[in-house]
């Protein structure tokens, strides 16, 4: 099967609802988690346990920002986490969902 190319520049908007892409598997690790996209066959490393929590809770939260808050991301760390989510959105690991 042709690997799915993520839509170029899928911009991340923290106010929108997101979810893990259905073809992505997460494996928790001591440093955070590995994420593998079966469509693009790309591997990503989530470098903190908190980020794993954020990503896991995306589907249940009304927005990316809310998922960060619920996972306990401190305000001064918020920017870094939004960046991380933006990178995941760009590579198709997470995608916008219809609320």
């Amino acid at each position, binding site marked *: *099967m042709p690997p799915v190319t993520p839509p170029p520049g899928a911009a991340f908007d923290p106010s929108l609802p997101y979810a893990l892409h259905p073809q992505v598997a997460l494996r928790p*690790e001591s440093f955070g988690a590995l994420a593998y996209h*079966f469509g693009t066959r790309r591997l990503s490393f*989530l470098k903190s346990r908190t980020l794993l929590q954020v990503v896991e809770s995306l589907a249940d939260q009304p927005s990316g920002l809310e998922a960060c808050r619920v996972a306990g991301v401190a305000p001064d760390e918020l920017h870094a986490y939004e960046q*991380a989510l933006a990178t995941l959105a760009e590579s198709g690991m997470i995608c916008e969902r219809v609320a």
Partner: protein
Amino acid sequence: MSNIAPGAGTRLVDRFERGLDAPICLTWELTYACNLACVHCLSSSGRRDPGELSTDECKALIDEFERMQIFYVNIGGGEPTIRSDFWELVDYATEHHVGVKFSTNGSRITPEVATRLAASDYVDVQISLDGATAEVNDAVRGPGSFATAVTAMERLAAAGFTGFKLSVVVTRHNVGQLDDFKAIADRYQAQLRLTRLRPSGRGADVWDELHPTAAQQRQLYDWLVLRGEDVLTGDSFFHLAGYGDALPGLNLCGAGRVVCLVDPVGDVYACPFAIHDEFLAGNVRSNGGFAEVWRASDLFLELRAPQSAGACGSCGHYDACRGGCMAAKFFTGLPLDGPDPECVLGHGEHALDARGGTETPRPSPDHSSRPRTVPVALGASRTGTSREVVVTTPDHRPDRSCDEHPLAGFVPAPGTTLP
């Protein structure tokens, strides 16, 4: 591959060197049987081993991979498609959330198989080709193998399978064809993957004659840097990081830390290039199964402990190349805590010279079809056709001082281009 890193923290490479609970990916050689007899075969394949895992044992192993959340397995051999249960096992793996990438010489990629592969989300294919021309390829992989691989790629492309891998082992004779390989990959909408020639398996017999020269290594590095993530390398060339910028990838030896090899009889080795008792961690048929071997074998625990930089400790490039490839050192008779035989600073060459007449370790086990036959192209005529002869080589390794290897002095003639 990307690192999603909020804030600073321990470098991932350091985490990986201490090992993970399960491999990131794993190579699984399904059979030692092969219809080819490539001169550099890592696993010395040819004949099936009577002790190879049964269909049920393979399925039980896949169940274990699923429990360990191993995302995908790289299936190889031998020629894995020769197993009569090959497709059954591929289906079983993907149904159990274990993705499959399999390596093949293409001989069994019929139009029907290509169509079937194109329809699957979880199966990737890697076609092996070691020359961008029939002359260069067939001298290493055997007569007709170039045409077979090209036919397989045509069929995959015709079936709409894009993004499959064209996998090339870089040698002294094909390193000048990198642009041609890229053009072939582009023609079939495939992705080019280059890997390093290791002195493993039968590769030990031909490494001296086939490994790229120092100048060629530099040329390869520059080419790879230029191409960036456009060309895959399976982290193969991290020993070249000493030239300057690291190449894309983890740039570490993942043996027993993030990768390993399961061979056709269930033996677990530290990596696909280290099929030797020295790197044997255990067997999947043992009580604790694969998981126990991965988590608790003495060998793997040792590999995950801090490694000594040894003779490389005073070198400013050690952080970049980490001393290079363990298997390459071992099979060329070099100490594991010294330079890689292809060290970019030339320390490996000095170390090789200093070995004198020391015996190098013989690869074990050996499933080569006997007698070992090595096709040698005798050069192309003006019409581009080449004569092939079959040379029978002795089973024992020729002395290093002896220059009688069938590939010694072989320089492929300028070849025909693809149709």
